[in-house]
């Protein structure tokens, strides 16, 4: 009962709130913000589809290139090969 009375008083206080007028110049400020904001970029479903096709084409090309190109010797293997062949005891490197 006591709670009901308190609740009714709460409602009276809340409902006694008066309407307020919006501040002056609000429209101008909104208009200014609209002019400052950049338009949202919209992509149509066709553009999404075209982007997906391009991506798939690129991926398939990478896959094709990986599977068909003969494997090359790695840089480490090559440097090992050069070092192995290099012989400091022979003067042939100076014969030029």
């Amino acid at each position: 009962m006591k709670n009901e009375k308190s609740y009714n008083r709460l409602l009276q206080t809340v409902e006694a709130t008066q309407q307020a007028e919006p501040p002056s110049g609000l429209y101008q400020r909104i208009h200014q913000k609209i002019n400052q904001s950049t338009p949202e970029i919209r992509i149509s479903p066709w553009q999404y589809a075209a982007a997906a096709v391009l991506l798939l084409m690129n991926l398939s090309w990478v896959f094709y290139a990986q599977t068909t190109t003969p494997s090359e010797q790695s840089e480490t293997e090559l440097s090992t090969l050069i070092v192995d062949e290099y012989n400091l005891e022979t003067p042939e490197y100076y014969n030029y």
Partner: protein
Amino acid sequence: MEDALLVLQLQQHDETAFKLLFDRYAKMVYNTALNFLQVQEDAEEVTQDVFLEVHHKIDQFEGKSSIKTWIYRITCNKALERIRSAKRKKRFAFFVSVDDANLQNTIIDHPGVDEEHKEKMALIQRLLGGLAENQRVAFTLFHMEGLTYQEITKVMNISLSSVESLMFRAKSNLKKKLSTTNLFEDEK
């Protein structure tokens, strides 16, 4: 000009139509935001955000509800976003600040609230802040905005029975909270 025609013109990015929409709904948006936030500066920022959103999203408005309902919905969402963000800031400040006593105060800067009611209104706002968001929205729209249950169903996109349930729960929660305070006990 009827709202349906106004929407058509807005979708053609007619500036005069936008001004007309602002003149028609600015007061409604501002007062709804003010009723949620109770601070003029915050309500103005929310009003700006609402009309910016309307301007940007008008092409997506399908006319399933009236433009008024749509604007109400945007306003409630923007106001709630602001309340959430303020709560997050308060929570963070609680960890940073050594003395959190000043964080407990609710500021009332509502030109429509009498000086004598400001203190009570601050306490009421704290009680409303303790309600679930949807209960708070239903309570505010019904008791402060004067919307009917039918109108609230459209704004909140829920059934009539859900609105009734939300209002019942808001009432019983507020009564419970009131029993722990002495807010109206000094009055006879």
